[in-house]
């Protein structure tokens, strides 16, 4: 069942993104930033947890998940360490995506050149 929801939820996010892209003047940069902030807001209302329970990988692969990880990391940091925890906890969960993309992109850039 999770597989069907994964397909539907990930598909719906992309569908909404494409509709915004086609019908407004916003660029892909606007869309990804917008969806990250939407992820933070859904996390704020406790809705993104439910989305992940429902759709698993379908929800965790969307860029909004990055916003959810930032918010959750910061809030859990606050619960553990107070105001300082917001600063130290913010990247504990979302950091994997940042570090991963830095390391992989930097290593691959050593071996490859742009095609055109």
């Amino acid at each position, binding site marked *: 069942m999770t597989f069907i929801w994964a397909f539907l939820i990930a598909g719906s996010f*992309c569908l909404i993104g494409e509709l915004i892209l*086609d019908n407004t003047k916003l660029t892909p940069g606007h869309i*990804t930033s917008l969806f990250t902030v939407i992820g933070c807001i859904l996390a704020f209302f406790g809705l993104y947890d439910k989305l992940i329970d429902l759709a698993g*990988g379908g929800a965790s*692969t969307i860029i909004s998940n990055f916003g959810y990880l930032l918010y959750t990391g910061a809030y859990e940091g606050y619960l553990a360490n107070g105001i300082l925890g*917001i600063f130290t906890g913010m990247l504990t969960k979302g950091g994997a995506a940042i570090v991963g993309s*830095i390391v992989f992109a930097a290593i*691959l850039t050593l071996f490859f050149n742009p095609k055109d």
Partner: protein
Amino acid sequence: MNKDEYKKLVKKHEPQENKLNNAIIAFLVGGTVGFIVEGIIVILMNVLNLTRIDATVWTSLIVIFTASLFTALGFFDNWMSKAKAGLLLPTTGFAHSVSSSALDYKKEGLIMGLGSNFFKLAGSVILYGILASFILVIVKVIISG
């Protein structure tokens, strides 16, 4: 010919993008990515006995690596433009933006080229994500006391 007539003429001749078609492609591609990612998570959970949280992080690293590799090999740009938002909103879009700007600015030097432009496109995601989270956590703290 005045400006309005010219605009009409341009509008008539510019290629019509089929919005319905784009939307369907984005839905199907995005859904397929979600489906595959869920599949990798389940495989990792069963084969390596990982918890769901660990498997999810490993899977997103695998997706980031794959997208970066395909970008470096040169054919992912083409996929991105064909798949519309279907590959932009999953983690693939973030990885693609980092690795494509890394490749493009490499020739301009290690610091002023590669270093300064690394997060040219993905930087706004990180900036607004962190800013929004910070504000929302403060609001949450104030509300819940």
